[in-house]
């Protein structure tokens, strides 16, 4: 009964959309990289440094959108680094990605401590405020939940459509998919495999960084160590769950976030009876279950994780 009330409440759905937002950015970013054939395990670190750069620039006086833009720029740069290693040099995508994650996250923590050597409570900024969209936000429950969010959430949802359109309906998207499926054929068509992959990885990494910035500029109002807390890895699971399709990634992110919002509320209601760590562990366990269920059906890009070297068959 309580659970039913909870599911009918608008707060639950609003929270779901909010929790989903950074996951949508991250999953779209990872999807873009993987569609071009490059696994980007740097996501956790890129989200961390995006969160930091977004927060730090606003903390230093920049306005919120400048913060988002700077975070995206740093994401682009780490994307470039990842493609130098994996696309041009053909190094192991797994190991490079872990290296990028560790480097980006620790650089963020290093500069955070340089900026604030002895802050015990992280200083706050004024984050994005909810912007109710006229009319649409009057629709009961769904409208209220979907259209009384902050601008970054609208951006995340809009990007799902944009990326799906670009991937499936433009020559650019066709080249990205082709490079991820059959780079040799793409090259025979006169495409630059290196160029397309680098572009996709850079754009994808920028999205990841914005996803991180969402957390400091829209969800919370400060940066702290371990802020991302595995959300990047969840995004990777979401991409597999979504069979590399943008709209399914959105659906996955919402499902996942809904579950997360539910566990927070369940924890408040039946807390004590069950240790709270069980609730916190559920998202990860759920991801593993989702991966297991989807593994057979996965239609992953054929050239994912296969380095391309010109002239090699």
């Amino acid at each position, binding site marked *: 009964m309580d659970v039913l009330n909870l599911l009918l409440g608008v707060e639950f759905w609003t929270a779901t959309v909010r929790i989903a937002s950074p996951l949508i950015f991250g999953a779209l970013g990872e999807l873009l990289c993987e569609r071009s054939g490059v696994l980007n395990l740097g996501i956790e670190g890129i989200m961390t440094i995006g969160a930091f750069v977004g927060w730090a620039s606003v903390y230093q006086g920049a306005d919120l959108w400048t913060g988002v833009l700077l975070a995206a720029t740093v994401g682009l740069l780490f994307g470039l680094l990842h493609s130098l290693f994996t696309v041009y*040099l053909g190094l192991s995508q797994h190991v490079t990605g872990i290296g990028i994650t560790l480097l980006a996250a620790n650089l963020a923590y*290093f500069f955070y401590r*340089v900026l604030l050597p002895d802050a015990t409570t992280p200083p706050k900024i004024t984050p994005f405020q909810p912007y109710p969209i006229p009319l649409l936000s009057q629709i009961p429950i769904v409208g209220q939940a979907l259209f009384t969010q902050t601008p970054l959430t609208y951006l995340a949802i809009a990007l799902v459509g944009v990326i799906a359109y670009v991937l499936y309906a433009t020559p650019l998207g066709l080249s990205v998919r082709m490079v991820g499926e059959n780079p040799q054929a793409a090259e025979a068509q006169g495409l630059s495999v290196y160029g397309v992959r680098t572009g996709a990885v850079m754009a994808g990494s920028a999205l990841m960084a914005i996803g991180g910035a969402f957390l400091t500029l829209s969800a919370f109002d400060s940066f702290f160590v371990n802020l991302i807390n595995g959300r990047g890895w969840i995004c990777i699971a979401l991409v597999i769950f979504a069979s590399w399709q943008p709209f399914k990634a959105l659906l996955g992110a919402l499902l996942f976030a809904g579950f997360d919002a539910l566990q927070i509320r369940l924890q408040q209601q039946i807390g004590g009876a069950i240790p709270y760590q069980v609730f916190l*562990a559920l998202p990860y366990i759920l991801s593993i279950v989702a991966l297991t269920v989807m593994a057979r059906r996965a239609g992953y890009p054929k050239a994912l994780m296969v380095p391309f070297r010109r002239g090699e068959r």
Partner: protein
Amino acid sequence: MPLNFRLSQIRLEPRESTPLWLAVVAPLGAIVAALILCVPLVSWTGVSPFQSYGVMLKGAIGSGFALSETLSRATPLMFTGLAVAVAFRAKLWNIGAEGQFYMGAIAATLIGTGLITLPPILMIPLLLIAGFLFGGLLLLLPAVLKTKLSVDEVVTTLLLNFVVLLFVGYLVEGPLKDPSALGWPQAVPIIAQGAFPKLLGRSHLGLIIAIISAFLVWLLNDRAVLGYRMKAIGANQIAARFAGIPIDRIILATALLSGGLAGMGGVGEVAGLRGYLSLDLSPGFGYTGIIVAMLAQLHPIGVLASAFFIAAIYVGADAMSRAANLPSYLADVIVSASLLCMLVSILLTRYRVRWK
């Protein structure tokens, strides 16, 4: 796009053999390159880089105390590095050494805090075996999912790290909580019979066990059929299947061995250094193990050396950050930069770079 144009002109020619000098110089070169790349961060406080790195070197190996600190820090890294090296050689992408490490620590705590009392000569091996099994079993799950249902093990092993850490949180706040720890969430301490004997300073028996393990893994790799088959699967799975190698069984064996090695590392930290299980037992030893293994180019004896190197950077950078008032995350930055530099230097040892 002049940069793009130039870079795509790179051609890599596989070397027939790697000259010995290059195999030795490459990892050292990678670390030197990483140190040079981090000079801008070090000079943040206005101290000269030479002076800073001097303090670092002194803090890492400059005294008996420093050396023992470095050795005790290197011990868990040897275990996680070996774990990663064993798995990666068979292309089992185990990113979960962190979780397996904690599973070993849990095993040591469950058995070593009073469940049974045996003389140390029996108690210590028992703890190690239990830790090995706990760690190995944790990796067995992703390995079974990989072999039976082709579920990507990178993500599953990663996600399990979070699950295990939450489980540790539950244990140290709940059933295993030490009531005399003044409210700190830590587990009841190991009994005296289970504690590892000390060697020099804070370094302990775990170091010797790590070294023995490395030699055993080396023997396995070079002399045993199992090691040969692991390598064959890693090199070319399709060819291995044609050769009649039972791939699934070998991958499961690799998982057990890899997770087990990481688990023994967790036992070592609890029984040899800390004395109890807590949430901050590992500052990411599992992830650093990936760097250790890559730096060693997955060679078990190399793991010993690279774990020592990485530990020296951590201990030295700690000393430097205290002296120069720099954030201690600097060590992690240097270490992750050396991983990326190492990847390039591995490329240089395997390939000749030619410009078209």
